């Protein structure tokens, strides 16, 4: 095999591709779309099956969801034995794909199949705050990014176009978020729910104390990657139905959100963005997608550090570990396999690196539920699972003392914290012995008043929170399972305490009877802080395993998500985030991907 140091070598006979991408989730798909648009030949390796890629296959996932006893984020998306994945049902026993070394449980999951976790994400597409990029400089905690908000601003715009975000700029300028004059999102905001209106009527303008600040709260529509009424000549991208001759019947489905109340775990009409849409938009003349191909090792040139090939295991049967080994070669390589899988692949390849940061600084947004009964019917179980949040606690000087947080204001009753409506029915029938008209009226009254907030709390990078591997723990292909060390520190715990206080004040103001932590709650891991117990869950917001920085000694990748030590290798996604802020990471991951793709394409085209 020829040497292609720094990815600039000439094409040789055995180099079939310009770029090899590992992973068919949002970052891999956007990367493939951009690079093929620049006429670069791309091979995309996806560990899991491509069953969500066709409309018929997607429909089978939907049927699986309907019939599933548990309707968690993974329920429509079963893994292949060869690409096992974490499952939130495994957190309690700690016996799943993750080896949980504690002391706290890492509560999040992701999915390994073409489309990745965007198949079951909620679609929240918030930009990060300008201050999120400079936490160390401003507040003396965490790290600064090697990029500023202004550097990312054009890529945020591009990302909002690429994944299709619905919002009104008029709602989104707060805490320093700034938009170019004349800019607005590609689609109008998703209509806020009736319950958002009721809550806003009670709450808007109320002040709470955070640190020594008085903060005024507002119920605010959030940007969502869900199809709405387009602006200008933007055309909403509906369901993926990729077949010979191009998109077929699915194209016209899902051009508006229809309120299926199932963003997580499956939007039946694909009105919500998923990565298959970006792959469908790639130029197929330059793209080869290989599903059921698990990257198993990165081979590098010992002298230059350049990647020479990526070894992968191809399987025919998702239920059998029988596989064949192959090597993929390109001029450049992009790991877009997920924060945990990227780190795992580097570690199993012996590429832990000199900085000692690879796999470290694992973060999430540990999240509490607050739930209660509204004094008036608010009509939950309708519309997207949420359409608004309370964002005013995302930034401010209090971040010197404790974590920032945001509230997601639910439209789905007590589904998430307590498994309602089923659990509400079971409680009434089994414990209260209700039947007949009394049962009917009790349920009508109760279900229509259920309120849920998610209190999502920032977590700072810590080298002690990590993904490692251990030869004792392997999957059916013999590849390592991720070993997770995770602790929620006092900075985040104090943020949880503050978030709980604010939620109680909001409930009090709105006359909502607090039912948080009642006996109906589903099981969640808990942490203790100053005499209180906080039950938390993961948000699926993995970050920080290949952190970016401006110095090779302290980071894994540079601001272009390019490996310091292997210059034709890029590790992309939320693993590159030095800090998480409080925004759901997908939009920022997309923006970073588009920035990296632009630079990589320019380099390879010269």
């Amino acid at each position, binding site marked *: 095999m020829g040497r292609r140091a720094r990815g600039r070598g000439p094409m040789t006979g055995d180099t079939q591709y310009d770029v090899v991408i590992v992973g068919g989730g949002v970052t891999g798909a956007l990367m493939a779309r951009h690079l093929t648009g620049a006429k670069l030949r791309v091979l995309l390796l996806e560990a899991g099956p491509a069953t969500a890629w066709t409309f018929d296959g997607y429909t089978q996932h939907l049927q699986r969801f309907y019939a599933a006893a548990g309707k968690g984020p993974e329920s429509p998306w079963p893994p292949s034995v060869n690409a096992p994945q974490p499952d939130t049902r495994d957190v309690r026993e700690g016996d799943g794909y993750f080896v949980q070394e504690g002391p706290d449980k890492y509560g999040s999951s992701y999915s390994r199949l073409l489309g990745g976790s965007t198949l079951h994400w909620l679609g929240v597409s918030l930009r990060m705050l300008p201050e999120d990029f400079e936490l160390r400089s401003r507040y003396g905690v965490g790290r600064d990014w090697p990029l500023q908000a202004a550097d990312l601003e054009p890529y945020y715009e591009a990302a909002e176009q690429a994944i299709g975000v619905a919002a009104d700029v008029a709602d989104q300028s707060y805490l320093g978020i700034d938009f170019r004059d004349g800019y607005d999102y590609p689609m109008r905001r998703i209509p806020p729910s*009736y319950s958002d209106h009721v809550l806003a009527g009670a709450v808007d303008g109320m002040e709470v104390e955070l640190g020594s600040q008085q903060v005024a709260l507002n119920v605010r529509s959030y940007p969502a990657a869900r199809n709405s009424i387009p602006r200008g000549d933007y055309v909403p991208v509906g369901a993926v139905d990729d077949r010979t001759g191009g998109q077929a019947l699915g194209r016209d489905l899902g051009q508006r959100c229809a309120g299926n109340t199932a963003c997580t775990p499956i939007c039946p009409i694909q009105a919500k963005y998923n990565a298959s849409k970006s792959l469908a938009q790639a130029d197929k003349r330059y793209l080869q997608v290989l599903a059921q191909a698990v990257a198993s090792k990165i081979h590098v040139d010992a002298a230059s550090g350049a990647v020479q090939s990526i070894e992968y295991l191809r399987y025919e049967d998702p239920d059998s570990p029988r596989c064949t080994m192959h090597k993929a070669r390109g001029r450049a390589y992009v790991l877009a396999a997920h924060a945990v899988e990227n780190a795992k692949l580097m570690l199993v390849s012996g590429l832990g690196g000199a900085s000692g940061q690879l796999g470290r600084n694992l973060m999430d947004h540990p999240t509490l539920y607050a739930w209660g009964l509204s004094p008036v019917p608010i009509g939950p179980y309708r519309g997207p699972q949420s*359409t608004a949040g309370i964002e005013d606690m995302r930034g401010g000087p209090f971040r010197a003392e404790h974590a920032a947080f945001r509230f997601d204001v639910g439209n789905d009753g007590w589904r998430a914290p307590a498994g309602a409506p089923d659990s509400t029915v079971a409680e009434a029938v089994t414990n209260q012995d209700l*039947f007949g008209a009394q049962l009917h009226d009790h349920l009508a009254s109760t279900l229509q008043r259920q309120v849920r907030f998610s209190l999502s709390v920032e977590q700072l990078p810590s080298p002690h929170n990590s993904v490692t591997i251990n030869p004792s723990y392997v999957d059916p292909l013999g590849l390592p399972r991720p070993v997770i060390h995770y602790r929620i520190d006092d900075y985040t715990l104090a943020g949880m305490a503050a978030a709980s206080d604010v939620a109680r004040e909001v409930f009090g103001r709105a006359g909502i009877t607090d039912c948080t932590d009642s006996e109906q709650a589903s099981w969640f891991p808990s942490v203790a802080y100053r005499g209180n117990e906080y039950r938390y869950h993961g948000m699926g917001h993995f970050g920080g395993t290949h952190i970016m920085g401006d110095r090779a000694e302290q980071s894994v990748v540079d601001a272009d998500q390019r490996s310091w030590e292997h210059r034709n290798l890029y590790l992309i996604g939320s693993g590159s985030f030095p800090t998480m802020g409080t925004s759901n990471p997908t939009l920022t991951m997309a923006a970073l991907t588009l920035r990296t793709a632009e630079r990589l394409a320019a380099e390879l085209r010269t």
Partner: protein
Amino acid sequence: MCRSDGVANRSQVFLDLSALLTGFKCVALTGTGMTDAYIGALDDVLPAQLLDDLLAVYERLPVGSERDAAVAADILGDFKLGPVARNLILLWYCGTWTALPDQWRATYGTSPLDTDRVVSAQSYQAALQWVVAGAHPAGARQQGYGAWAVAPAGAGR
């Protein structure tokens, strides 16, 4: 009532009992299309004759003001029939089968089908809990763009 004049067949008696227990009218129950599936679900799990025992007790209930008290005492309060009747309510409201209590199983026997489960993809979507909530099954029967911004219609019977 589901029955017209004359002798009611088993399905009609089952529907009448279901209407009494769920608070939904017979036409709403029939409209789910799940009647046969739920009778089948009960027959598959329960010992032979048990569903017919329940239907027979229902047929003997007094009418008028004593009826509700009799349901509570003779059906829901009965060691054998109570858990079955509660499962019947859960079938209609949730589309799910719930494992019977351990004591009940110890007395009347177990079935491999007696586990917590969704009866079928159809039963999930037909569950009346979504109707009573003034809503729709999550992931199905979408209400349309923006419908969620309108005040809830209230529970329909």
